[in-house]
């Protein structure tokens, strides 16, 4: 079987995120990293490959983004992907969720994967929707926030938490599965894998290479127009105690609770 793993480059968690007022888009300059949720998807692919229930011929990391996104792909390869595909074109800049999903699906189509894996959400946009969009364009079933996968023959039995408890769903390949962060504990890449990542094949694709209809992507092709950013009503900042002397900290907490009759 062939597995494609969708990965994304996101601003480092420690970087303060902001909207660029001139473009209305997220300012994506500054330190970036592989979306931490995606490492669970790569690990899930690796565990299928190493598990022995199914023969995994290849794991391909796929990303859409500017030139810098290559670093996220290198990280994905260092974690176990065999090669990577980088969808990069100025025409894609400003794509909304639906347009991004369409473009990614177009790039994945050429790979004809049996399974597409991705993380449950991106660390920056707080969206959990991309998997369902990609799946619809590929004509595959999709399931999100999966915390357990058991491959059985031509399909996979998935468990996930939904509105009323845990659901178990049987899905036939090919399929798109977004995994929750409880599914596994991602491994750390070895130094050798990190050093070797840049030598693994990396294919860069333009919109033409991926047969993408440019009228459906980019800021102009997107159906959602975002703008008019405003500040939400802010709750007054709370009191912060840095714990240095724990006895003193506990005294302060008890006094705070007592004052509000919460004990």
């Amino acid at each position, binding site marked *: 079987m062939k597995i494609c793993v969708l990965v994304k480059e996101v601003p480092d968690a420690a970087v303060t995120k902001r909207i660029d007022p001139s473009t209305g888009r997220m300012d994506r300059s500054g330190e970036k990293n592989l979306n931490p949720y995606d490492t669970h998807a790569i690990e899930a692919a690796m565990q299928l490959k190493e598990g022995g229930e199914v023969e995994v011929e290849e794991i391909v990391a796929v990303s859409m983004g500017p030139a810098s996104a290559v670093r996220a792909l290198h990280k994905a390869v260092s974690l176990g992907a065999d090669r990577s595909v980088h969808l990069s074109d100025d025409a894609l800049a400003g794509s909304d969720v*639906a347009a991004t999903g369409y473009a990614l699906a177009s790039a994945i189509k050429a790979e004809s994967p049996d399974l597409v894996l991705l993380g449950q959400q991106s660390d920056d946009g707080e969206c959990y*929707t991309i998997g369902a*969009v990609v799946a619809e364009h590929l*004509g595959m*079933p999709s399931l999100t926030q999966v915390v357990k996968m058991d491959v059985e023959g031509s399909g996979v039995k998935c468990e996930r938490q*939904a509105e009323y408890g845990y659901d178990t769903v*049987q*899905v036939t390949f090919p399929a798109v599965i977004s995994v929750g962060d409880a599914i596994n504990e991602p491994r750390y890449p070895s130094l050798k894998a990190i050093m070797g990542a840049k030598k693994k094949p990396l294919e860069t694709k333009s919109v033409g290479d991926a047969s993408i209809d440019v009228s459906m992507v980019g800021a102009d092709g997107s159906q959602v127009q975002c703008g008019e950013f405003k500040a939400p009503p802010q709750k007054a900042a709370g009191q912060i105690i840095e714990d240095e002397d724990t006895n003193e900290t506990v005294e302060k907490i*008890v006094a705070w609770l007592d004052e509000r009759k*919460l004990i």
Partner: protein
Amino acid sequence: MADILVYALHYEGAFNKNSLGAISEASKLAGEAGGSAHAVVVGEGISDELAATLGEYGAGKVFKAEGPEGLAQPVVDVMAKVMGDEGIDYAVFGGGLLGFEVGAGLAARLQAGVTMEVTNVLVEDGKLVAERPILGDSSISQSRYKTKGIIIGRLNAFELKAGGSAAEVVSVTAEPSAQAAQASIVSRGEQRGADVDIEGAGTLIAGGRGLGNAEGFDLLQTLAEAFGGSTAVAATRAVVDAGWYPYAGQIGQTGKTVAPKLYLAAGISGAIQHKVGMQSSENIVAINKDANAPIFEFSDLGIVGDLNKIVPKLAEAIAAKRA
């Protein structure tokens, strides 16, 4: 004229509260835009009488289709057909899991725009404009749609209003897409772990991944016992998924929504999916070793430190105070 279609999630003879809120919201918006709000129900043997009750929350018509419950693709098939046949340009979903899966798939099928985590919707020149908080709720962004728009609400964003009359129920049959046949429910709604009651508690002690392991919950139980009275222990999704605490005690997007007098969060970072389930609590106290944890942005008292050091001493001090 802006008609709006709303998906009503059904489980064991009742509709999801967030779906009902979405119907009320859509009914109000459609009224302002000079249109109507309708609902879609997909399930196995749902009675017309039950489907018609959606009218009480504002649905004009209820489009009812037979199909498996708990899966997104069959709902996408039905909603795409109804929106096409009836010329409906907008769909609204209440907060939850299935809603965003259906909404995202529907957006791709219809080439519509999609916005999620929406907390407010406006009508402007007969069109819907969605507002969603972004960047850890530090800013609000407005979405406008070129043609069709799919609006997915944040949990508890839309207020439920009853008082209408029974809706007309219309049976529909949609040609299932090929991918819909590739997924089937094996079991639904499995309750993992003991049945704990957190909804009636006046004080909740909640634990997250920062507890480090399942034994961390023993610390929280001791603290809960020290508080005594109507105090219970709750958890985040990550630790419930990890099997550290029962599902019945989970707060947030696919768990419970609570508003106790005191919410004490230990080792919880404060992700949006958790915040939506507890932000109405009267007093929020957070203990976390990461000074940058988002929870400190909406807590009334924040303690930056090691919960393993603080919680046992806090339990002792509270027990002593009450003795």
